């Protein structure tokens, strides 16, 4: 079995060696012996020994581990792993929420020459089966009973799976422990056997260099099966170094680790940058306590996808509606000032004395307390990425004095492609190339990059590797965009493969329109169709908290998402939004064909459990198109309503059906083809 796996691995290695050449020449060896994550850990234990490295809130108290503690924990675990029979080149899957112990597991895995593979912990067992089997994980680190159960459910199909280690013993006592191990027990056994195993651990650790594999991350995959992106120490360490320098991150930063561990960003922030600069990673008590924990920690460096900022803003607005008149007045008045001068003050641009004074007053009455409530008082650098963020949302945070910026990246680039430097922050660009990144726009408008962060290869998938990465190390992002004249900032239009042509030859860029729709708090998600057709149509998901709150205020009773989504007044509101978007789209001569002629509000929220979205909540356009084919037909054939029945998957994997009759609305479109012709 082992032999078999090795053989399969070798071609990929060779291919990597060929392509690694260009990376090697440009890689800086400034790292000075810091060629692996375990090496960085050793340095940190010496240099920052008693400084907090990880915190986790447990039993209501923040528990702290210093860098020295972390080194001891990782060493014991690494010894325990050798003791358990982990070989070099084995894959160790890590499944669970953001817990310090799981981060250490990834470092311990690398220490013994194995490859850590973090998985999305909310994936259903079926989805895990593919990834676990694809990487052939011999070992699994599971957070708790829930994850252990999932792996046990599918273990018959995992031919290489041997042992599972769990963190939380609760509920697992009665389980068969022949291949199941308690995390602490593994550490204790490793510690007990340290005399005989320590030399082997040293030997394995000494073999690690910039070229060895640091981590393998599965992309969520908007199309097809997930792909295992192999990232080397060079990718991780140099990306961490460059990005830390870019924002002058120091050992004093505090971050909150709350995004999925399987996502490359979390690995870079909570492991890469944390180990490089020596800052402290804080893990929340549970996903539900995230907001409280954020406030208690007050991170200085903060990352969130646009969705989180949107939700926070929506909540603020909802709560302001309930505030007293005096407070409302204060909020309105000072927010108007903030919107006018806040971003300029943040960028250090000249602002009149009076405005400065008013802003200071606002800081005392409104901005300060508000930032404190949001847990963002201390944020020095905030980032958002993954999706376009609404200009109003973006400006709201910046006007409060929070240095929120955008970056653009992907797993294959070890996150960073472009970043916004301080003082050049805008909502419609994603910034300039990150340090060490070269950027190029292809003939078809697609964005290409080359950087020290460029991934090694897709695991067991040389075809895809070759498709994505060319011989010179240029990687296709799959996004269409252009570099703005003058500023040198990159602007992204849409996924390159989603950009198409309408039947009359006009440009079709669905994301562009969808984003405009999603900027309305009432609209959570939108999917626009129209490639190769005469006109564009749209599916809309309403935002249950925003619309629900509105319904409450207007005495509209509802019992479910479905009922609220079908309410005529909700349809009216969404129709108004769609028509506004149409107006703004019509102004752009290139994209005016993307105006939405008809739309409907879906009877269920698009969900990752149903495969309609990725785990990072990006819409899988093809799947939505196939699944709701009947609705699309109805949109185009002019019918006024359509009855449909949809399969839904519950969190535990069971299936059910919901049926609904949906109303289809026409939206006003602006015909400017006449103008266009006149202009020509």
């Amino acid at each position: 079995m082992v032999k078999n796996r090795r053989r399969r691995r070798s071609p990929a290695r060779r291919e990597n060696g060929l392509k690694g050449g260009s990376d090697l020449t440009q890689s800086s060896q400034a790292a000075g012996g810091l060629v692996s994550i375990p090496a960085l850990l050793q340095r940190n234990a010496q240099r920052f020994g008693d400084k907090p490295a990880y915190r986790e809130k447990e039993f209501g108290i923040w528990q702290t581990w210093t860098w020295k503690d972390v080194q001891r924990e990782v060493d014991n675990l690494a010894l325990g792993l050798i003791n358990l029979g982990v070989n070099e080149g084995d894959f160790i899957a890590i499944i669970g929420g953001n817990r310090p112990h799981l981060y250490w597991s990834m470092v311990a895995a690398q220490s013994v020459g194995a490859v850590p593979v973090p998985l999305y912990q909310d994936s259903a067992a079926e989805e895990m089966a593919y990834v676990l089997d694809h990487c052939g994980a011999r070992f699994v680190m599971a957070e708790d009973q829930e994850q252990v159960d999932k792996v046990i459910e599918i273990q018959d199909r995992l031919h290489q799976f041997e042992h599972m280690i769990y963190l939380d013993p609760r509920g697992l006592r009665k389980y068969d422990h022949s291949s199941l191990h308690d995390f602490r027990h593994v550490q204790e056994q490793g510690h007990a056997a340290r005399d005989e195993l320590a030399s082997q651990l040293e030997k394995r650790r000494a073999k690690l260099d910039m070229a060895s594999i640091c981590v393998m991350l599965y992309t969520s995959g908007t199309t097809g099966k997930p792909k295992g992106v192999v990232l080397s120490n060079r990718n991780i360490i140099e990306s961490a170094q460059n990005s830390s320098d870019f924002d002058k991150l120091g050992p004093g930063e505090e971050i909150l680790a709350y995004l999925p561990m399987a996502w490359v960003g979390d690995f870079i922030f909570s492991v890469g940058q944390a180990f490089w600069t020596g800052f402290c990673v804080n893990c929340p008590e549970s996903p539900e306590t995230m907001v409280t924990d954020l406030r208690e920690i007050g991170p200085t460096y903060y990352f969130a996808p646009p969705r989180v900022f949107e939700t926070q803003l929506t909540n603020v607005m909802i709560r302001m509606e309930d505030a007293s008149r005096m407070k409302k007045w204060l909020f309105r008045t000072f927010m108007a000032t903030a919107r006018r001068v806040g971003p300029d003050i943040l960028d250090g641009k000249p602002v009149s004395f009076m405005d400065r004074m008013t802003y200071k007053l606002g800081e005392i009455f409104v901005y300060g307390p508000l930032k404190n409530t949001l847990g963002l008082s201390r944020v020095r650098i905030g980032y958002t990425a993954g999706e376009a963020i609404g200009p109003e949302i973006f400006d709201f945070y910046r006007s409060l004095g929070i240095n929120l910026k955008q970056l653009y990246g992907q797993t294959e680039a070890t996150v960073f492609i472009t970043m916004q430097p301080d003082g050049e922050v805008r909502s419609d660009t994603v910034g300039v190339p990150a340090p060490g990144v070269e950027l190029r726009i292809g003939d078809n408008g697609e964005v290409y990059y080359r950087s020290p962060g460029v991934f090694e290869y897709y695991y067991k998938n040389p075809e895809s590797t070759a498709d994505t990465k060319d011989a010179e190390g240029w990687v296709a992002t799959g996004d269409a965009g252009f570099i703005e004249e003058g500023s040198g900032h990159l602007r992204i239009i849409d996924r390159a493969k989603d950009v198409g042509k309408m039947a009359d030859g006009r440009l079709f860029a669905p994301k562009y329109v969808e984003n405009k729709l999603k900027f309305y708090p009432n609209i959570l998600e939108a999917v626009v169709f129209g490639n190769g057709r005469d006109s564009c149509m749209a599916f809309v998901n309403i935002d249950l908290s925003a619309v629900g709150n509105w319904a409450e205020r207007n005495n509209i009773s509802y019992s479910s998402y479905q009922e609220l989504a079908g309410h005529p007044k909700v349809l009216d509101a969404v129709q108004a939004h769609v028509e506004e978007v149409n107006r703004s789209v019509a102004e752009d001569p290139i994209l005016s064909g993307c105006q939405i002629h008809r739309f409907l509000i879906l009877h269920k929220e698009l969900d990752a459990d149903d495969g309609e979205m990725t785990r990072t909540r990006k819409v899988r356009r093809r799947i939505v198109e196939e699944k709701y084919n009947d609705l699309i037909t109805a949109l185009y054939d002019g019918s006024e309503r359509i009855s449909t029945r949809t399969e839904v998957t519950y969190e535990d994997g069971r299936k059910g059906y919901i049926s609904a009759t949906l109303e289809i609305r026409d939206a006003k479109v602006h015909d400017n083809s006449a103008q266009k012709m006149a202009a020509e």
Partner: protein
Amino acid sequence: MNQMSTEGYVTPDGRKIGGVMMEMRNITLRFGGVKAITDISFDIREGEIRAIIGPNGAGKSSMLNVISGFYVPQEGEVWFRGAQRPPMKPYQVAQQGIARTFQNIALFEGMSVLDNVMTGRLTHMKTGMLAQAIWKGKAEREEVENREVVEKIIDFLEIQAIRKTPVARLPYGLKKRVELARALAAEPSLLLLDEPMAGMNVEEKEDMSRFILDVNDEFGTTIALIEHDMGVVMDLSDRVVVMDYGKKIGDGTPSEVRNNQAVIDAYLGVAHD
């Protein structure tokens, strides 16, 4: 399975159930002329989950109140850990290691979840009111120790996110869980649950069932519960007592009870499956 042996038995899922912890001998309870319970005998064994079921007005809650010592039966004896139990005050019962939850949640609505659960520790606290008010030395140490126990329970029942929320603001399902937390905080050897799943939706019921099983598994707590939902009872309990009009009409494992004709007639009406 000969479950009537005094030395306990082994459940189908392999748990070892111990000897008799509590025994009801020929209990009869009257309220004036109304006979709520007529001549009922059964036992509860160490480590088991024992359910009492029956239609409305069968006398289930009265039975639970007899077990908890709140009602003193006119006839019959209650034996607890090998000794006959005299009439007692509720705090004495609590000191014996019996804790309970209520059908109509009885929490302190204005207090936070944490404070509510802390009240469950009262029997374990020795310092006086004045010492606690000054909160120095022993009183402080004691509170810290007890808070640790409470935090473990908060973690166990996954209610960290509402630790500081006033109970009045919680939805019903969570209140039920907080009540369970408070009962657990007393570290009882016998836990009495009065309709722990009444008024819950399917998902909440599943959560609660899992917690009940985990409590039994993790702390080895003996649990006696009253429940309406037949599905839940059958899945959850090791043995079931069935009551109707104040009389015991069945007693045994869930499958025995399910096949008992008297029970089917009185309560289930039709045999399911």
